[in-house]
Structure formats: C-alpha cells, structure tokens
C-alpha cells in the first residue's frame, strides 16, 4: 500500500492527529472462515496507538476485555516506550469501523502476539517525535534525551509531546525494511517504570461502581425486547411448532418465524418470558442426545482395538506389546463455560443513506467475525455493518459465534426497531458449545531402574476447533483431515522414552462443542500427569523428583516450575492424620507456557466430602508484564481446577441439555476456596507467553494425585465425587 493511502486511512478513521504508520493490509478474507485469525505483524500496531494534540496518548485496545485485562498489560508496554504512565493513556475500545480487522481474542495469545507490534508502534512514534524535538531545540538527535512525557537536553531544556503535536496532524513513517527502534519494554537490562509493575486494570472504577460497560447496560432510545427459542443442538430442525398461545400475552409486538428460527419481540422483558413460555417446539435431532451415546462415541479402547487412531501425533520406535507398568483409562466429562454474564446483543437497522445500515452492540471474542456473519446473514455489505464490542462478563472460549447477535438482528429486522436480546441462564446453557467429553488410554513401561522405556498414549474426544458450524459446512470435512489444533493441545508429554507413540481421534458428538479454557490441554494433561503419578507411587518414588528425572533435561523451564512448587508446598505442613494428602502435577500449555501445581486435600469420611485445603502454583510465563494480573489469571485457573476436578458436570439426557442453571451445574463458590500460594517465575529477557488458560492444565491432576495420596484412590474419571472413593 502506498504511504498516501495509508495516510488517508488514518485520516478516514477520524483518529489521526499524529500517527505512526508502517504497512498494513485492510485485508478481506478469501473464505469466510470463523473465527477471525489474522495475527498482527511488526507493522500492525500503527493503527492502534497515536499521540493527539495536547500530547495525550490514545490507544485503540486491540483485545476484547473479558476479565483477562490484557489491554492493561499492552498499555503498560506502550507507556514504557513513550515514557508515560499507563494511567495517562486514553484507551478506547474500537468498533469495527475504527481499525483494520483484529484477530479473535483467544488462545492466551494477547500478550504473546500483540506486545511487540505495539512496542514497535509506540517506539517509532517516540523516535519520530524525538526528531521533531531535535529540530525544535536546534540540537542533534543524539543530544535529545528521554523525559517523562517528552524529551530534554542535558542542560534540562524540555520539550513535551504536547509541544510537538498540534492540530495539523502528521504521520511518522517507518519503512518496513528500516531497523526497528530500541524497544524499552523488551530490554531486560533496563530499569522499567511500567512493564513488570503491578498496575491496576484500566477502567476498574467502573466495575465497582456499577458503570455501564456490558452489552445489556447500553442505553438505547426506543428499544424493545426480544428472544428466540434455543434448540438443544445447532443442527436440530423444528419438527412441530405451536405458537397459538403467544397472541394471548399482553405486550407482544411480533412473533418471528423463519425456518428453524422462532422468536418474539415485546415491549417489556417479562412479556418476553411469558410469550416464549407459550411457544411449544419439538425438535428433530440428527443424533440422540444422552450420556451413553457420548460415552460410546469416545470409547478409546474400542477405537484402539480396531486399529490406529486417525491422527498420529508422535511415533518413535513404537512397541505394541511392552511390559506395561501402568495401563490406565481416564474419562473426562463435558464441561461448559457458565460465564457470569448470560449473552446479550442489541441490533438496530438504519434507513438507507445512514452511515451504517446495521449496528450491533455485543460482548464477543470476535467482533470482526460478527461483522462478517451479520453481513452474510442479512445480505448487507460488510461496510454497512458495524459492531460495537462491549466488555464481556466472562469469555473462556465460549463467545466466538454469531448466535445471540443473530437473534437480535433477525428480530430487529422484523420489527424495524432496535431490539435488545438478553439470553436467560437456561438459554446460555442450551446454546453453549461445551468442552467435549474425552477418553484417554495411557500405557507406560519402565526398566528396572524405573526409567521410562515405552509411552503409548491414545485418546478420543469430540471436535474442538473443527466442531460443527465453526467452519462452513463444505470446509469441515476437508479441515478435519488435518489435526484439530484444539484437540491436540497438551497431547505431547514432557517425558522422554526410547519408544513413544501418541495418537488421537476426534469425533462428532451429539451436543454442540467448541473452545473451552485450555481446549484439550486440561483433559490430556490430567491423564498424563495422573498416569505418571501412579507410576511413581507404584515404584515408591517421590513424584516430583521422578518426573523431573524423566524429562531428561529436555524441559528445563517446566522442571524449574515443578521444583519451585515443591518448595512452595513444603512451607505448609500437611497434617499426619488419615485423609490428608498432597499431590503434584505440571504441564505445558501450547508448547510455550510452563506451570506446576501442588494440592493439599482432605478426604473427609465424616462429612463425605473432598476438600481442597491449599493450592500452590509456580508459573513461568516469560516476561511478567503485569505481575498482579498474571497472578489473577493463575488464581482464576486454580479455582477452575477445583471445578473441573470435583464439581462440574454438564448433564444431558432425554435428547436435550439438562444443565440449565447454577442449581444443576455446580461451579466453585467461596466456601470451596482453599488458601493459595503463587510464585511467578519472571523471565525478563523472554517474551511474554500468556496466562489465561495455563494453570488449569496442572490443577486438576494435582488434586487427583493428592486424593491418591490421601486415600489410595486413583481417580479415573472427572469430576471426582466422594462416592467414587
């Protein structure tokens, strides 16, 4: 793209006063692939950070806020480069018209993928302004030194950013082949003022004072209320429909029936509840929905007995008939997101001649995906659709799909007024795309010193990234020939053996599936870490030293985490009495994030319950940009570990979803909380690797291993109930 058009873009966004620009493409997708995957390159940050007249740094937050507070960390990086305080950055959540397309916020990738492009943009801006400061001061550039919010000379003549940026607006160019300026944020020798410091999440005041930050809080003139009936599974078709009772309800504006879509629009929320209750639907299903069917479909032993699994992930001198020391089958149940905010969306159609024919307010992990899907759904061009992303009341992988948005769009189109759709909690469960059930067979053989000789791990799970309707129908069978990147997460163990084979198969399950925190990582690593712990127990070895030995020096960062958590756990004495136990586990999320967890549990025979008393975690996430928020993500993952290990089970039966609210899908509460001890292994010279879904891979097996230590019971199925013991 020529520089002139780049300039034009910045001006057209209504944003430019001063800006940095490299080359970035306003790309359209060749095929409509969901979710939006366009990761930034070294020049992308130009569109997100600028200094405006008055010297204020404005920043378009390139990530969706859903509790991970990644934008705060990214703003710290910008602030470090510009020698300002993160609190002085004016952050703006961009709509789809403000910035070039952004990737879906997912995969614990925000700091990993976005920190460097932002640092380059901010540093380019700083150096461009330094040139102007030099001209203004009549000094060579080398004599213009950094100062807070600007520059100074050695004799303390000062020029602030405000002095350098006026109303005319200009663009600081950096050609792509030009050297990247010095990046302060990534200079491990540098004394930093922003990066590495525990800054409060930007916008935190709104969150404790009742500010309007979520979709359903957005005020809208003339809004009416709507909702559609959610099918138990997306590919269900309406078999019979009776809407005759709807007209009896006061406040109904309209009933909308389009194929398998049926919904209502009313003047008040309670009228919506009453009208929806009057709609009687039965569904035609393509597969029966019940637990026996799910168990049958993921039966790893049946599949492995029939031959190789579909995807061979590791194959090194495999032996089918070793003398197995451990030969265990693990089953992991379906779990769902259960974010605290049930999804909501507001859609408004505007008359021809308006800037945008369709506007949508929604809390989504993928705003540009929503723009694309709304365009396909309505026949409007993408440029006629604008998405205003709102803060999410929790994401966890569950908010990547055009669903509540679709409901709002179709209902708003039908009534010609803005429509707010607020899903009920039951809708939220019904429409959830859950983490699939999976079954895992692990066989390990060892020599007479106890070292691993053979490792054979096979597992079967529902699809994750290639789940139904996550890709266009024509693309799905093609895509599924290759490895599903969600299904393979966590599959390769950190342990070394001369003979190793890992194989897996992903299958269609009768419920809707998708991305859940850590994808398959937590399931696979539960199986791997349980099996290794069992081997250590059988050999009478201390599990931490045993596991580190079996890594054979290949995983120093993981070994360091495990040794650290061992030390942390030893700070607290485990009671000698019966029923107490301690367990350890470690894991690598996505090949880049390293974590270890220890758990102390009490198996309480009197009250017939399993209590997690204390959890320790040591995590190496590379450079800790914001240690406090990194710690917050670890805390969150540890709480989820308790849910996954002991509480959460997504119930299906009788051809529908039975889990409908928090009384029949149990998530951790305050009374379930153990004490926590967390150590962050800071690696200032290594790039940040992400934290959003990391510790969850090690927490559940640590709890399971602690139960083994406490009671002798090896958990082969999650969640673990006291009755199992």
């Amino acid at each position: 793209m020529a520089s002139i058009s780049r300039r034009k873009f910045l001006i057209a966004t209504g944003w430019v006063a001063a800006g940095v620009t490299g080359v970035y493409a306003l790309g359209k997708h060749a095929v409509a692939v969901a979710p939006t995957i366009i990761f930034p390159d070294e020049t992308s940050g130009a569109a997100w950070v600028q200094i405006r007249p008055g010297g204020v740094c404005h920043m378009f937050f390139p990530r969706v806020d859903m509790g991970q507070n990644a934008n705060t960390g990214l703003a710290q990086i910008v602030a470090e480069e510009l020698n300002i305080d993160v609190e002085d950055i004016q952050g703006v959540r961009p709509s789809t018209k403000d910035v070039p397309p952004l990737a879906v916020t997912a995969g614990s990738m925000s700091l990993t993928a976005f920190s460097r492009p932002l640092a380059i943009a901010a540093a380019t801006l700083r150096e461009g302004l330094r040139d102007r400061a030099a001209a203004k001061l009549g000094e060579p550039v080398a004599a213009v030194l950094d100062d807070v919010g600007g520059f100074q000379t050695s004799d303390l003549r000062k020029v602030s950013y405000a002095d350098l940026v006026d109303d005319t607006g200009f663009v600081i160019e950096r050609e792509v082949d030009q050297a990247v300026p010095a990046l302060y944020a990534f200079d491990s020798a540098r004394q930093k003022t922003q990066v590495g410091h525990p800054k409060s999440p930007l916008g935190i005041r709104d969150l404790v004072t009742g500010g309007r930050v979520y979709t359903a809080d957005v005020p809208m003139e003339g809004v009416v209320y709507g909702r559609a009936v959610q099918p138990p599974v997306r590919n269900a078709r309406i078999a019979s429909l009776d809407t005759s009772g709807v007209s009896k309800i006061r406040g109904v504006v309209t009933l909308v029936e389009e194929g398998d879509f049926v919904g209502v629009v009313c003047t008040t929320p309670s009228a919506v509840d009453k009208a929806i209750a009057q709609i009687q639907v039965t569904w035609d299903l393509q597969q029966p929905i019940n637990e026996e069917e799910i168990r049958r479909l993921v039966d790893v032993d049946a599949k492995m007995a029939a031959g190789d699994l579909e995807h061979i992930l590791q194959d090194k001198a495999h032996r089918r008939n070793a003398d197995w020391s451990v030969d265990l089958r693990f089953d992991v149940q379906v779990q769902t997101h259960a974010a605290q905010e049930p999804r909501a969306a507001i859609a408004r159609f505007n008359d021809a001649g308006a800037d945008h024919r369709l506007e949508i307010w929604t809390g989504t992990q993928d705003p540009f995906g929503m723009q694309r899907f709304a365009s396909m759904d309505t026949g409007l061009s993408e440029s006629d659709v604008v998405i205003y992303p709102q803060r999410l009341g929790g994401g966890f992988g569950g908010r990547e799909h055009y669903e509540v948005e679709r409901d709002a769009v179709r209902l708003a189109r039908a009534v010609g007024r803005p429509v707010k759709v607020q899903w009920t909690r039951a809708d939220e469960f019904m429409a959830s795309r859950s983490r699939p059930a999976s079954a895992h067979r692990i066989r390990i053989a060892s020599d007479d010193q106890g070292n691993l000789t053979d490792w054979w791990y096979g597992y079967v799970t529902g699809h994750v990234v290639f789940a139904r309707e996550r890709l266009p129908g024509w693309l799905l069978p093609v895509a599924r020939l290759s490895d599903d990147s969600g299904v393979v997460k966590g599959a390769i163990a950190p342990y070394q053996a001369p003979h190793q084979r890992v194989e897996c198969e992903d299958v269609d399950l009768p419920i809707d599936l998708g991305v859940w925190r850590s994808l398959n990582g937590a399931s696979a690593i539960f199986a791997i870490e349980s099996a290794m712990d069992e081997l250590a127990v059988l050999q009478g070895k201390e599990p931490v030293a045993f596991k580190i030995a079996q890594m054979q020096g290949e995983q120093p960062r993981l070994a360091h985490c495990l040794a650290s958590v061992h030390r942390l756990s030893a700070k607290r004495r485990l009671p000698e009495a019966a029923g107490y136990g301690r367990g350890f586990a470690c894991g690598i999320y996505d090949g880049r994030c390293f974590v270890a967890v220890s758990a102390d549990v009490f198996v309480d025979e009197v009250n017939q319950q399993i209590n997690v008393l204390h959890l320790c975690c040591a995590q190496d996430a590379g450079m800790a940009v914001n240690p406090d928020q990194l710690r917050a993500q670890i805390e969150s993952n540890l709480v989820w570990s308790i849910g996954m290990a002991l509480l959460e089970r997504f119930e299906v039966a009788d051809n529908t979803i039975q889990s409908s609210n928090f009384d029949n899908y149990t998530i951790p509460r305050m009374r379930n909380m153990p004490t926590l001890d967390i150590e962050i292994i800071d690696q200032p010279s290594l790039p940040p690797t992400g934290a959003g879904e990391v510790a969850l891979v090690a927490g559940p097996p640590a709890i399971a291993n602690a139960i083994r230590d406490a009671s002798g019971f090896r958990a082969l199925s999650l969640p673990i109930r006291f009755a199992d013991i």
Partner: protein
Amino acid sequence: MKVKVNEVEHHVAADWHEETLLTVLREHLGLAGTKFSCGIGQCGACVVHVDGSPLNSCLISVADVENKDVLTIEGLAGGDGSLHPLQQAWIDENVPQCGFCQSGQIMQALALIGDTPDPTDADIDRAMSGNLCRCGTYDRIRKSIKKAALVMRSTS
C-alpha cells in the same frame, strides 16, 4: 407506583408494574449496575438492599418494594464521588476480572460487615457463598472484605 432508590424517589410507569425489581432498576430507571445472571436466586449478581437487608432483586416484584428504601451499587459511593471503603478495598486488591458479579459481591459484603464488623473466614464463607464468581476472584474478595472491615471499624 413510587419506589425510592438510593434516596431518590422514582415513578414507575404502569407498563412496568409486573416486572421484577431487577428489570425495573435496569431497564426503566437506568440503573444498570445491578446485574442479571441466573434469574433464580442462585448467583447473587442482582443483590440490592431493601430496607437494609440484602435481597436478590431478580426474585422480587417491583410492587414488593413500594414505599421501601432500595440501595443499589450506584448509591454506595458518596455524592462527591468518594468511594465506599468496600469499593476502595476492591480497587486496592484489584479484585475484578470480568467484573460482572462484583456489584452483587460488594452489596452482599456490605450486609456482612453491617452484621459482623470483624468477619472471620467462616463468616465470609457463610455470607458470601451465595455469590458466584466464575472468574474465581474469591481469594481477593475475602482479602478486600477484611481490609474494608478494618477501615470501617477504625473510622466508626
């Protein structure tokens, strides 16, 4: 119908008399800080105080609070914008992740400290276990309650 929320009297139009208190607060009176999450009193996101007692506003009709005093999260800070000690403690400890449950958590914690000025861990477990936080900020909520309670004891 008139309802008094945060010391201000509001008129509730006839079309809204059959709604829950939560719906009226959010959709009719423009007080969106109180959240809808479960709708059956299982999660505590919608906790407000009615005549000083914490209630799930998703479970009660607006008609039930006629002539009563309702306090919501919006009424907690001082008129000059000064934060309540609980809100300040929540910021000091960086409690919120997604933040969605936090209005309800703070309103529930307010009731706890009102009854129990120096709450123990067991008091906190008992009082706060009806308030879900899917992000798992419980450890920080516990710390913040203790911190705010200390501030409130020392200033009262």
